[in-house]
């Protein structure tokens, strides 16, 4: 039978991942197998991390005498036989353009993500929902092979293109034997041994992929069932147990008890938790309360940075062997308010007054590099960590206690009358994060929203209708660091409530 269409292979990669090398391997293997082949690409700015693609066409048999196939230079939607992608979002991009078809496409996609700058730079969580892409891939390809190619490459000490090659071969993308592929890698020279390992691992892995289960699942909770708090949904109980542990770790067991007391206050105010709105409000409330109570001050940071487990983690992340030595240097620049914050209330207040008056506070607030693996650095940090003992009498503690009490009071009222509003209010402390200017901005935004939306709603007793605006305002505060969106949102919320307020008066 005359082959009417060429075999088409589309490779999606990011700049610098070796997509060009992969195309070269495929072409060379095809040439050795005596098959007509053409590859082309739009590398443009390869090496520079942008999305890029390579496209290969080949025939399954040599051309008849006197004839030469006319290969296309551009892949066509719906006409790709094998599609391999090194990254899940890029897979999504190709699916969006229609490249995979249920009639012909074998879709091999790495389940790994390389987040884009647009996703990473968000103030909250800007990551695209991977499960959407996974679900689409499942339904739009003839055969879907989700596989963590990045991990395979990492484990075999090679780059991802070798794993992509193995996955293609394992999925039957080529009309020639596996040996041709491996010879092409060997002929490539440098790094051939590692590449062959990556190839083999991916080749084998393709066969064992179970495409019936979602490749990307939501993270599952792992905590042990807690004692007490019976009658609450499991998710809520999990968060409470974690919150208590978190507070114990931050201060001491008494502090963990204080946390539980505060949570009990919330539960007492709430209607039965069968209502999902109530459950959500309690879960978020318990979560944010724990994180808030264990705020990041200098003693906390100094303590976390000098724990044994931390140095173990650094060694693990850097993939260090036991015979390698590690030296760690910290980049610290505690602001004047952070130093004042850990000191006893009166001294802290005095420092802040001095700073506000414009007098010099040098050397407080200058950048320092300190080595936590050095003797001096380590013990300096341990000494700072000891300030945790006087934390309860510090300036920051007093400030946070006051703010937490205010929030708790608002939460109690909200839980009693409007679980939807309580849910939004529970998420509000999410704004209180970061250090220095970032933290200050979060506090300012929090205060602005509290006085513009929360306080008026509580006063007027109109919580249900304020739930939407409150949720919008929190999202707006996380939309941009300059506060432009928040200002606009608060202004419009203000306008919207104007007539009602007049009516109330």
């Amino acid at each position: 039978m005359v082959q009417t269409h060429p075999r088409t292979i589309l490779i999606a990669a990011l700049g610098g991942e070796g997509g060009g090398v992969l195309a070269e391997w495929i072409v060379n293997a095809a040439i050795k197998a005596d098959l007509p082949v053409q590859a082309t690409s739009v590398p443009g700015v390869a090496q520079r991390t942008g999305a890029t693609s390579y496209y290969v066409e080949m025939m399954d048999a040599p051309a008849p005498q006197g004839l030469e196939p006319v290969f296309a230079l551009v892949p066509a939607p719906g006409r790709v036989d094998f599609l391999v992608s090194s990254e899940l979002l890029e897979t999504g991009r190709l699916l969006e353009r229609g490249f995979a078809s249920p009639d012909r496409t074998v879709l091999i996609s790495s389940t790994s993500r390389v987040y884009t700058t647009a996703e990473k730079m968000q103030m909250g969580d800007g990551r695209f929902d991977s499960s959407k892409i996974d679900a689409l891939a499942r339904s739009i390809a003839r055969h879907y092979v989700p596989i963590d190619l990045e991990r395979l490459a990492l484990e075999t000490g090679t780059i991802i293109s070798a794993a992509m090659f193995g996955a293609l071969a394992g999925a039957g993308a080529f009309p020639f034997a596996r040996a041709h592929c491996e010879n092409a890698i060997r002929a490539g020279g440098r790094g051939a041994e590692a590449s062959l390992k990556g190839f083999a691992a991916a080749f084998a892995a393709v066969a064992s992929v179970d495409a019936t289960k979602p490749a990307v699942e939501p993270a599952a909770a792992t905590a042990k069932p807690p004692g007490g708090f019976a009658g609450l949904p499991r998710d809520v109980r999990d968060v409470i147990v974690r919150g208590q542990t978190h507070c114990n770790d931050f201060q001491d067991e008494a502090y963990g008890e204080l946390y539980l007391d505060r949570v009990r206050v919330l539960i007492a105010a709430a209607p039965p938790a069968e209502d999902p709105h109530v459950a959500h409000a309690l879960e978020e409330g318990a979560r944010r309360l724990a994180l808030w109570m264990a705020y990041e001050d200098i003693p906390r940071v100094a303590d976390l940075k000098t724990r044994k487990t931390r140095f173990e983690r650094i060694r693990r992340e850097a993939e260090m062997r036991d015979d390698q030595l590690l030296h760690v240097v910290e980049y610290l620049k505690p602001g004047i308010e952070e130093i004042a914050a850990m000191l006893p209330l009166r001294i802290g207040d005095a420092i802040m007054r001095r700073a506000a008056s414009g007098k010099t506070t040098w050397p407080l607030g200058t950048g320092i590099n300190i080595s936590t693996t050095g003797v001096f650095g380590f013990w300096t940090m341990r000494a700072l960590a000891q300030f945790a003992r006087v934390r309860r009498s510090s300036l920051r503690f007093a400030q946070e206690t006051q703010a937490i009490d205010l929030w708790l009071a608002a939460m109690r009222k909200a839980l009693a009358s409007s679980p939807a509003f309580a849910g939004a209010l529970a998420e509000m402390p999410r704004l209180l994060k970061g250090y220095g200017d970032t933290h200050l901005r979060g506090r300012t935004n929090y205060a602005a929203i509290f006085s513009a939306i929360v306080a008026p709603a509580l006063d007027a007793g109109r919580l249900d209708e304020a739930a939407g605006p409150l949720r919008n305002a929190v999202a707006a505060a996380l939309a941009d660091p300059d506060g432009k969106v928040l200002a606009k949102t608060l202004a419009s919320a203000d306008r919207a409530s104007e007539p009602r307020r007049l009516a109330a008066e």
Partner: protein
Amino acid sequence: MAEVSFGKEIDLLKLGKGETFHGEGILAVTKALLQSGVTYVGGYQGAPVSHLLDVMVEAKELMGDLGVNVQSCTNEASAAAMLGASIMYPVRGAVTWKSIVGTNVAADALSNLSSPGVMGGALIVVGEDYGEGASVIQERTHAFAMKSTMWLMDPRPNLTTIVRMVEKSFELSEASNAPVIMELRIRACHARGAFEASDNVAPKISARELQKMPAEFLYDRLAHPPVTYRHEKLKFDVRMPAARKFIADHKLNEVFGGKHDDVGLIIQGGLYNGLIRALQELGLADIYGRTEIPILALNVVYPLVPDEIVKFAAGRKAVVVIEEGQPEYIEHEIGAILRRADLNTVLHGKDIFPQAGEYTLEVLVAGLLKLLPRYLPALDLGRGSAFVDEIAGLRAKAQSALVGPLPPRPPGFCVGCPERPVFAALKLAERQVGKVHVSADIGCHAFATFEPFSFGNSILGYGMSLASSAGVQGFSEKRPIAIMGDGGFWHNGLLSGVTSSLLNHGDQILVIMKNGYTSATGTQDVLSTPGPQAQASASGASSVNTDLTIENTLKGMGVKWLRTVDNYRVGDMRKTIVEAMRTPFNGLKVIIAEGECQLERQRRLRPVRARLLGQGKRVVRERFGVDEDTCTGDHSCIRLSGCPTLTVKPSSDPLKTDPVAHVTNGCVGCGLCGANAHAATLCPSFYRAEIVTNPSWFDRAKSGFRRALTRTA
């Protein structure tokens, strides 16, 4: 540049008669130049043609054997002017650049080359950067061919045809005394294919066979009045007819017959492969190019040969011109040809195919579906319609499943790039002085127009940033800042920008990214590239501080306010930018932002490190990290960086729902994270890890002592 090896490519250039060349399109062109016996080659780098020059520059030995003179020109105008050698000497020459931008820069020289015409074959190979992956504005080189009366080749994109057309271009150029341009689209340049090679030809006049006497004085070979009037007549009375005769005699354009005679398709050669695939989709051609609809593939798109067009169109109900890009020059010319011949064949083109944009398979199929039923109603085109519907269905399904748009992934600065910290500093400086007008330029630094920096109010061209801020400074309260790379500085910025600013006492600020190379095009050398010794002794460190050509040039020209800052010292850079904004000094202020291209540094470092590790010697690697338990997930650090290795990951603490910052093991320890943490008072989560492999006894003793006196392990 020295760190990239083109050994395999150079071997391909040495192939002889009967051997098969397997490689990329642009390298096939390079080989074809040698087979044509070129005496000289020049050009300016740019995708997708950089490879031509890069490989030739590295193939010193081969070029020396053949006597070929290879020049890396500092811009396209200087490359175009090289072709002046073929005006008065019977030597073949070729130059290359990225179009349309490069052709714009070269335009003056091209006018004055075309006017007297050439004696030896002159070929310009341009990368026609149109469509997917294109980085420059979408204009056509075709306009330049027409206005300067140069011939334009657009070969069918298979290596055999491309190589044949390169060889024929020189003959055509000599037969008609006119320069020839060959346009190659991105994918054709990168198409990996094969052709049967022939022997390289050593030119008769060359660096080995020197010309003893300079050419005689002939005023009518000068582009100078009054002979330019005669040139204008020669172009159309002599050269054009000679070219048409050559094109027809050598059958440079190809007709592919088909059984449905009522319609004919006239297409630019470069689009031929796509058209065959479209006809396949409609069931009207096979994979070997056998078509049922007749095709005239124009490997030469300017000039057209009226007789060929008339012969192809005569007797048909309609012809359609399939011509990518706008305006539709070919269609207009064919319209005139048909009208003059009083032929009643209907002419279609842009009435059926889209005015702008790439002619992909679906565009071609959709166009043919509009055309064919009108003239060939008996054809069953159901397959084509099904194809169009299928694609629409697939896209609709994907869009509804993905709900929102996918986050974009534009190219960005490399890991550890020295230009990233400059924009971090600029962002921080804006906190002090307010928003500033930024004139951007061409080069890697243009990536700062993307997130997280989003800098740049205009991009006017390569090396044009300072010149483009001249108008702005006249009416702006705050001084505008122009960003320029050292590549742009030597390409054009020195003259267009700096001299003009000095002459006019402009109160502008210029930041020159001194990274040592034209990095965006593949780290080719510039005048101020550090010497090989300086590079070798710097190893993985920056070596650009060893060359002061830029600084000395600026001082010599009279720049009084000049500061050099190490890019990675973000605090210092911020201070310098603020100082430039606020200083009472009225005149050009230049900040040299110093830091060598990280790609080159890593290319040098990798083999050194591998050798040391192989010998079991001490190696220290630095990388940065983020402590996830102190990271609060605000990502301010990412908004000041955008480094690919500074990313996010889910927190190990399930209480935290926002992802935390995370540094991957690809970090090269450039230092930006630490510098930002200090300069912007970010957060205490960053640390620098120094990892010692094969530690010395002193390292081990020191480490043992520390471990004994601390509780770190």
